């Protein structure tokens, strides 16, 4: 039985602002259509940029002749790789921490020498209207030598596979992620495998010898898109003084600034990136596609240039997540203790190295305590768009494999699947298979909350219906973050912070700030600053914002509080140690008659010393990992193969839910994306590498009509590394759904689905195979 005393579940420490669900400050602008997104910037004299893309999945670009396009009236600039500075292929840190192989990223934005996927940008045009720009694109003559494409990792790893990059360095450093290119004079390695690494713990061979039951599982997943509503869009203006201003929708204005500067060979101080509202990103808007090209066109034309991608361009020219092939082997004793695990993960990186296999492998068994394990991973380049981050990048695919195997193992052991997971759950101090020991985590409490939930304990009636469960792990990230708070004379506060708001984070920042000062959250006016107005803040990603930028806001509020105390002390002519701040009132510790409210001090701040400004820059450690456990009931139509979601419950450790309604929204949103990934979504290609379903009509995402209400349970195991106990919440809810649904389908019809998506045709084929048809 479980030898562990759970921590508190549903923490009940009371706060004034934290834990409530106030209306977001930006809500009115968004529901009335006033909010300005990436494409909403318009300027006098502005041109429209369009990107010419390769029609071939794999081709040598022998020449580009843009003379006719340049001669077309209304065309102000045409750019190709000849105008595009060559960026070093060395894997590098940008100045303040973002890790990218900028050479590859540069070649992804504008092809150099070779087109590596259908949709790869080859040239760009700026003209007086989108129509003239399109007409000009048709006049650009590109001479291609078409090559055979590599469309899957399996093809790419064959000995006779066409090679995407002649000088690809297959990284030998076991620790590194994306590879680089070898020196010009180095002997070609002729490989599409850009990275391989492994983890090892204990003695896995002996572990399997000691196991009473062994289960092996092999799964495949297809590339899927993040499905954000707003295509990438932005405006760049290269001014006559050499400074560049960019208005765009992104997950990181500092990434836009830094990448644009690096690609165009100018100092970061020359670029000002202004974050517009963002209509969804889910990881995909953490790198640049349009901004550097718009800046290049602006430099050449002398005019501001807007580029707004179409939906087809978004599908074909920006990054989806990786397709994967994953194998796992698990060994357990007959009393249900996991004692050995092996796995091999192969992720398709797209045209350039750098799939999320590093996260996939580290998250695959992150929530379990397994003493012996050996995991290895491969990153393979193929002729498809470069894979980009998508909500818990890499983890959903590996969890799909692991958690279906766990279900099968529980069945063979005759154990309840949640009880089996509880028995093998990691806890504080236990070791993950990748090596490190766990900090304080809430895995057991979350599993227990799922096991105790009414959904799990309600009998499921009806034929062809099944219930499945699965868990998911995500490590969560931190990073540098900044906040500046300016007290206004009416007692309100203008709070500027550096994280683009894609999940309601502005209000969560205001709440953490307001909590320190005991002021109404409505009195805090949060905004996201541009790169000249706020200190460096790393991307909105990794479920990091409420943690890291929350810390910055907390510290900025502490600074304001201290200044308030000092102002009161000055007014009363007493030492500041004699003043205490309580419930937004400053009072003399020993003279109850001496009191001033926050608003009263604010009104007197100028004559008492000038403006009160609190600021903070942080890089806090210890974001703390999260776990989600999902329960799903499905019904399977054996005539059509359609799987219907009948009931869905998602249980998750949030550390402390700053704004519970938005935490609930994140959990529901992640679950819904996972359901789409599980049942419907996939990139469909023909043999030439042309995507066949590049529209939302053919790329089928779930709608509200497809789904029941997603029930949520927020478990709160406070993270000791945050003043309010926050853990990231945005990503882990997309991790469990695929396996939970696969397990539910098995429960309904006795067929284990191992290939995503579990679309009607595949379900029918699996049923027919089972019935010997």
């Amino acid at each position, binding site marked *: 039985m479980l030898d562990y005393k759970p921590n508190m579940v549903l923490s009940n420490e009371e706060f004034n602002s934290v834990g409530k669900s106030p209306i977001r400050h930006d809500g009115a602008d968004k529901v009335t259509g006033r909010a300005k997104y990436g494409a909403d910037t318009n300027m006098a004299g502005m041109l429209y940029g369009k990107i010419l893309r390769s029609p071939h999945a794999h081709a040598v670009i022998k020449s580009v002749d843009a003379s006719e396009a340049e001669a077309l009236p209304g065309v102000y600039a045409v750019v190709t790789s000849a105008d595009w500075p060559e960026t070093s292929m060395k*894997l590098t840190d940008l100045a303040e921490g973002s890790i990218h192989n900028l050479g590859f990223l540069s070649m992804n934005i504008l092809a150099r020498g070779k087109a590596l996927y259908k949709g790869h940008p080859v040239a760009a045009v700026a003209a007086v209207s989108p129509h003239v720009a399109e007409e000009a694109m048709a006049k650009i003559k590109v001479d291609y030598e078409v090559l055979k494409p590599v469309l899957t990792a399996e093809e790419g790893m064959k000995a006779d596979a066409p090679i995407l990059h002649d000088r690809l360095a297959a990284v030998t*450093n076991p620790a590194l992620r*994306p590879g680089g290119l070898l020196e010009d004079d180095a002997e070609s390695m002729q490989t599409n495998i850009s990275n391989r690494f492994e983890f090892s713990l204990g003695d896995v061979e002996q572990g399997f010898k000691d196991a009473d039951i062994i289960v092996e599982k092999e799964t495949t997943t297809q590339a899927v898109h993040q499905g954000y509503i707003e295509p990438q869009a932005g405006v760049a203006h290269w001014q006559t003084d050499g400074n560049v201003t960019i208005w765009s929708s992104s997950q990181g204005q500092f990434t836009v600034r830094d990448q644009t500067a690096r690609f165009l060979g100018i100092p970061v101080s020359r670029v000002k990136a202004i974050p517009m509202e963002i209509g969804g990103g889910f990881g995909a808007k953490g790198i640049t596609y349009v901004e550097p090209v718009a800046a290049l066109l602006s430099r050449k034309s002398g005019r501001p240039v807007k580029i707004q991608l179409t939906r087809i361009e978004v599908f074909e020219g920006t990054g989806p997540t990786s397709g994967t092939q994953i194998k796992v082997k698990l060994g357990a004793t007959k009393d249900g203790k996991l004692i050995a695990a092996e796995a091999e993960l192969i992720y398709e990186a797209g045209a350039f190295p750098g799939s999320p296999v590093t996260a996939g492998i580290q998250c695959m068994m992150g929530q379990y305590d397994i003493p012996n394990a050996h995991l290895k991973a491969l990153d393979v380049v193929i002729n498809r768009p470069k894979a980009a981050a998508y909500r818990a990048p890499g983890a959903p695919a590996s969890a799909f494999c692991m958690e279906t195997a766990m279900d099968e193992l529980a069945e063979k052991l005759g154990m309840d699947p949640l009880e089996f997971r509880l028995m093998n759950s990691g806890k504080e101090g236990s070791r993950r298979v*990748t*090596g490190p020991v766990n900090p304080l985590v809430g895995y057991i409490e979350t599993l227990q909350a799922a096991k105790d939930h009414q959904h799990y304990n309600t009998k499921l009636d009806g034929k062809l219906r099944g219930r499945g469960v699965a868990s998911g792990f995500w490590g969560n990230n931190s990073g540098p973050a900044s906040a500046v708070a300016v007290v206004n004379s009416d007692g309100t506060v203008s709070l500027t912070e550096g994280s683009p708001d894609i999940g309601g984070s502005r209000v969560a920042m205001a709440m953490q700030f307001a909590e320190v000062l005991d002021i109404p959250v409505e009195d805090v006016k949060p905004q996201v600053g541009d790169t000249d107005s706020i200190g460096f803040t790393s991307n909105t990603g990794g479920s990091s914002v409420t943690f890291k930028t929350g810390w910055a806001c907390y510290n900025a509020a502490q600074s304001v509080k201290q200044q308030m105390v000092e102002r009161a002390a000055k007014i009363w002519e007493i030492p500041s140690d004699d003043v205490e701040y309580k419930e937004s009132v400053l009072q003399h510790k020993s003279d109850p008659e001496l009191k001033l409210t926050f608003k009263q001090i604010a009104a007197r701040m100028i004559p008492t010393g000038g403006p009160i400004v609190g600021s903070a820059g942080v890089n806090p*450690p210890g974001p703390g990992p999260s776990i989600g456990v999902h329960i799903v009931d499905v019904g399977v139509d054996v005539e059509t193969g359609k799987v219907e979601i009948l009931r869905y419950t998602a249980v998750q450790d949030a550390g402390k839910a700053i704004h519970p309604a938005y935490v609930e929204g994140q959990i529901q949103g992640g679950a819904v994306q996972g359901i789409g990934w599980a049942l419907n979504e996939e990139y469909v290609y023909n043999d030439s590498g042309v995507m066949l379903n590049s529209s939302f009509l053919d790329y089928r995402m779930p709608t509200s009509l497809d789904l029941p209400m997603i029930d949520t349970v927020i478990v709160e195991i406070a993270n000791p590394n945050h003043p309010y106990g926050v853990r990231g919440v945005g990503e882990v809810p997309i991790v469990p759904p695929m396996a939970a649904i696969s397990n539910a389908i098995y429960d309904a019809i006795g067929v284990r689905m191992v290939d995503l998506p579990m679309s009607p045709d595949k379900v029918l084929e699996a049923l027919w195979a089972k019935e010997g048809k």
Partner: protein
Amino acid sequence: MAEVWIPPKLQQLTGGHQQVQVEGTTVRRLVNNLEAMYPGIKEYLIDESEEDLIPGLAVIVDGEVSVLGMLEKVQENSEVHFLPSIAGGAGG
């Protein structure tokens, strides 16, 4: 002394040892002492400037990913891992 866990493919440099005991009060000192014990290992861990970890690499000290990298303090009984860093997506 701190215990450093050696990534599997670097264990050829440590004579097959999976964990080694290393002196050092910071990650920087730890890496330099590791290099003295197992020449050649440093180039897999830190960049040419010797000021930073190789891009893409994270150091985990006592279960937490360090934000200070080479400057992170290491205790007498600390456990240190070098793992690939993980990029995040986002929830919205």
